[in-house]
């Protein structure tokens, strides 16, 4: 059941009304109802792993309490390690088992062994990368005494399973979400309307921008051997936009739906293409994953390697980004994707500009020429790296890039002057324009301060664009992770 389906509309309307009209007597009623709705939602999406989700919730709840209540540091560590082994083990088994299994045999064969192997058929539970990281973060925070564990199983279960973010995030932090669950939620007109705006914008991003870009990018990627360099470059442009619109659209819908239930999820994207360096980009792209990795991987690692100064910092960054890449899937392509992003940080480390992050052209209508050049260069770099996010193998990725940097890059792209491409370029332009206008705001479609006529014209215009240019979409790119 995806957010942009009729099924979800049929699900969300009664859930919303029952939540506020029937189950709003106390936080306990609200939480019981939210848990029921969340489990129903997950069951509808994929009932086969409901037991896994429940099991993971119970074990992490128990471990959180044990870590907190055990006075001895050594025993605390043991419970934390059990938690780490359990959660990472789940991920390793369901997501990475075949990757390592095949890798092991390939190494054996490289040394002359003639072993054969058959990959196991392991289904990937929906949302496993998201809820596992969330519970991992929870256990580490409890261990580090940054938060107290949730004593209440019901509240903890809602924290893990809350339906708007269970399938594809944002990867919520216990310190932010649990306190909201521990309070009775009160409906706010402004917050709900803002949530609805975010849903509308997310819907537009997904079914208009992402799906129309996919229409152009997919055939190019599927037939890359026969396309000119310029066409391949155009394919990467549309894929980069597709990837962003798909996932940011999903995130906006998730955050918007959550607001309808009085719960604020963390922002996941903050107009990342308006960044002037890679560090700034990652502060704005998939923010819930990036901050998670910064807190639980990069910071401890760079602290450990601090004696090695810049060298230690570079190792920490590259390790973190390789893990960011690998988090996405058990494929070398994601490792290369992460590695390249890590490498892009190296010049920043040496120039001491790693912590530079700012809103481009803050308070101004237009960016400076220097900012435009920086943004374009960064976008091109990201766009080319996204090739590894899209292709099935590293060799295909390099062949694709080789195809781009051939003499045929000066040809006119074969698909440039089709009506589909021109319409999609116009839609992408509109999408980016609205993002640019709202780049300093809390989300991409925060228009609450506009006058009522302008607001309604905006809503209706977005609806008309969705009606005319929307494409049906049954899945999101990030569902596979």
């Amino acid at each position, binding site marked *: 059941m995806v957010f942009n389906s*009729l099924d979800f509309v049929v699900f969300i309307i009664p859930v919303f009304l029952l939540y*506020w009209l029937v189950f709003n007597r106390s936080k306990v009623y609200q939480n019981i109802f939210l848990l029921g709705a969340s489990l129903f939602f997950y069951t509808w999406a994929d009932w086969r792993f409901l037991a896994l989700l429940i099991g993971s919730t119970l074990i992490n709840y128990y471990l959180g309490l044990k870590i907190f209540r055990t006075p001895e540091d050594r025993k605390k560590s043991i419970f934390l390690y059990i938690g780490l082994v359990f959660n990472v083990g789940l991920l390793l088994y369901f997501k990475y088992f075949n990757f390592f299994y095949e890798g092991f045999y390939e190494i054996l064969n490289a040394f002359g062994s003639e072993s054969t192997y058959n990959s196991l058929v392991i289904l990937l539970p929906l949302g496993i990368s998201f809820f596992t990281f969330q519970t991992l973060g929870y256990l580490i925070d409890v261990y580090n005494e940054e938060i107290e564990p949730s004593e209440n199983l019901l509240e903890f279960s809602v924290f893990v399973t809350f339906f708007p973010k269970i399938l594809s995030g944002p990867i919520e932090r216990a310190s932010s979400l649990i306190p909201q669950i521990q309070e009775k939620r009160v409906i706010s007109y402004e917050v709900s309307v803002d949530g609805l705006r975010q849903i509308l914008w997310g819907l537009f991003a997904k079914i208009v921008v992402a799906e129309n870009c996919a229409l152009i990018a997919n055939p190019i990627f599927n037939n890359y051997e026969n396309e000119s360099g310029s066409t391949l470059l155009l394919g990467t442009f549309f894929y980069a936009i597709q990837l962003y619109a798909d996932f940011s659209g999903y995130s906006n819908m998730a955050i918007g739906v959550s607001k309808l239930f009085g719960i604020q999820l963390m922002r996941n994207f903050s107009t990342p293409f308006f960044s002037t360096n890679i560090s700034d980009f990652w502060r704005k792209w998939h923010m819930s994953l990036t901050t998670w990795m910064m807190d639980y991987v990069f910071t401890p690692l760079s602290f450990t390697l601090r004696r090695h100064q810049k060298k230690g910092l570079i190792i920490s960054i590259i390790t973190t980004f390789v893990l960011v890449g690998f988090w996405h899937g058990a494929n070398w392509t994601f490792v290369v994707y992460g590695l390249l992003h890590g490498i892009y940080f190296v010049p920043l480390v040496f120039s001491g500009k790693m912590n530079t992050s700012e809103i481009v052209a803050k308070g101004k209508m237009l960016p400076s020429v220097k900012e435009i050049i920086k943004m374009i260069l960064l976008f091109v770099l990201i766009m080319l790296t996204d090739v590894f996010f899209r292709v099935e193998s590293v060799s295909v990725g390099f062949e694709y890039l080789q195809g781009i940097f051939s003499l045929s890059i000066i040809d006119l792209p074969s698909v440039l002057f089709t009506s589909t491409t021109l319409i999609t370029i116009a839609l992408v332009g509109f999408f980016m324009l609205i993002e640019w206008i709202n780049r300093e705001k809390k989300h991409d479609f925060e228009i609450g301060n506009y006058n009522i006529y302008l607001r309604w014209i905006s*809503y209706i215009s977005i609806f*008309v664009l969705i*009606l*005319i*240019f929307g494409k*049906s979409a049954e899945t999101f790119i990030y569902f596979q992770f």
Partner: protein
Amino acid sequence: MKRLLLKLCLFFICCLAITTFVLVEYGGNVDYFYQKFTTPKAVSMVIGDSRSMQGIQPRVINERLKELKYELPIFNYSLTIAETPIGPLYNKSIGKKLDETSENGVFIISVTPWMFGSDKNNDNNKGEFREADRPPHNMRFVNMNPNYEYLFKNLTYFHFKALFRKTSTMHKDGWLEENNLPTNPKVFDEWKKRQGRLFDKMIRNYEVSSLRLNSLDVLIKKLKKHGNVYMVRMPIDLDFVAVENSFYKNFDKDMSTVATSNQIEYFNFNVSSTHTNFKTYDGHHLDKHGGLEFTNILCDSIIRSANTVK
């Protein structure tokens, strides 16, 4: 809460109003079938797949068959081979669209071998039909304007973008007019090759269903109560005729048998000497000019047949 619900309702009303406007004004351009389910029940009908949907023009029949005093206008209730192969489901839908008060209608059933093909994985005797989830079988209402049921159940069929280009128009009489066919013969060759691959796939995956053949008999008997029934095999390229006949070897014989047993005419335009006069754009679909010519010739055949009976 009240204020929120009120605003939400207002927003949905605006959305509904815009959607309704588009459906009413451009329903024939933004979906290939939508218009078929917005018109009143029909006293006379064309039944078939995409060949008849594009190749048989009701306005021509209405004009030409006036002299035979049939109850007109005739409505083209053909969809495509994916939606309307002959079978109990299509029969049921025809029953919904048929004006039961009709006593002297004219019913033209366009048949092709593929319309009797069933997926090898489907057991028709157990009620398994590949078309079951598609329109018009997933709908209760086939004569409602605007038809929101069709919109909600078949949203993926719509292509609202087309309202700017209007490359095809589904007319109120059920005829699909392609307005913007390319002129480059290479494109037609490519389309024909694609259709050929589709036929090869169907030959691999389909088998002739006796239940569908029986359904044709049931349909004819039902329609005969409301007027005269004619069966027609529309003209297609000869190489495709050979492909079709390899799928259903006794097709013409079986059709003739059904026609004879029900005392109706079967017009087979793939054996007549005039066959080569009809030019298709992809091997088996007539364009609007070819369709006009063919409909006139079909009317000639019907008039001739009716006069012979008299």
